[in-house]
């Protein structure tokens, strides 16, 4: 049984560019959440998708958007990248309350 997978593992972008990160949930999980983890901090909640709809959203600007597909996989899009968007982006999937995390995508914005 494959766990949560994310792609790519690493990414380097320049300010102003756009980026798309991808997540495949654990088999049988229907809910996907995205988190941003800055260096030395705990993960911060971005948003959660359930049944292809954004169910909840954290305190992140509209530059951060997402999508969930019928197979429950998900994308995180960030527009107009800023230096401060450099972080580890984590995806978590769940069926109930217990969340399982993927390995993350390390984004560096230059």
């Amino acid at each position, binding site marked *: 049984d494959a766990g949560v997978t994310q792609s790519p593992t690493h990414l380097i972008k320049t300010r102003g560019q756009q980026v798309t990160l991808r997540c495949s949930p654990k088999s049988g999980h229907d809910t996907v*959440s995205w988190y941003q*983890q800055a260096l*030395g*901090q*705990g*993960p*911060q*909640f971005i948003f*959660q998708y*359930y049944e292809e709809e954004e*169910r*909840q959203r*954290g305190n992140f600007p509209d530059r951060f958007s997402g999508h969930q597909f019928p197979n429950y996989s998900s994308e995180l899009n960030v527009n107009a990248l800023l230096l401060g968007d450099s972080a*580890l982006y*984590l995806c*978590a999937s*769940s069926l*109930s*309350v*217990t*969340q*399982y*995390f993927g*390995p*993350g995508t*390390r984004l560096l914005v230059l």
Partner: protein
Amino acid sequence: GIQVEQSPPDLILQEGANSTLRCNFSDSVNNLQWFHQNPWGQLINLFYIPSGTKQNGRLSATTVATERYSLLYISSSQTTDSGVYFCAVGVSSGGSYIPTFGRGTSLIVHP
């Protein structure tokens, strides 16, 4: 929102030592998880423990929900225990649950 404080922020141990990590939270919760983040960034579930005590090998956890804290015990520590330990808490409502993470305890175990 809920405030989560973890202590100590940093911990350095010799292999074989025991340790206790603490998580305090500011409001009533019905969900609490402990995670271990390895040096490559992977968050690994350790315990789902909104109340009571659980044990898994050398690790155990206790949550006293009425007093708003949880403890993670690591016995006979090994170098592979190194990493950051996070506590995440929250309240589930209508099938939705958004955990709030603490800042973590960074553990280094020396051989």
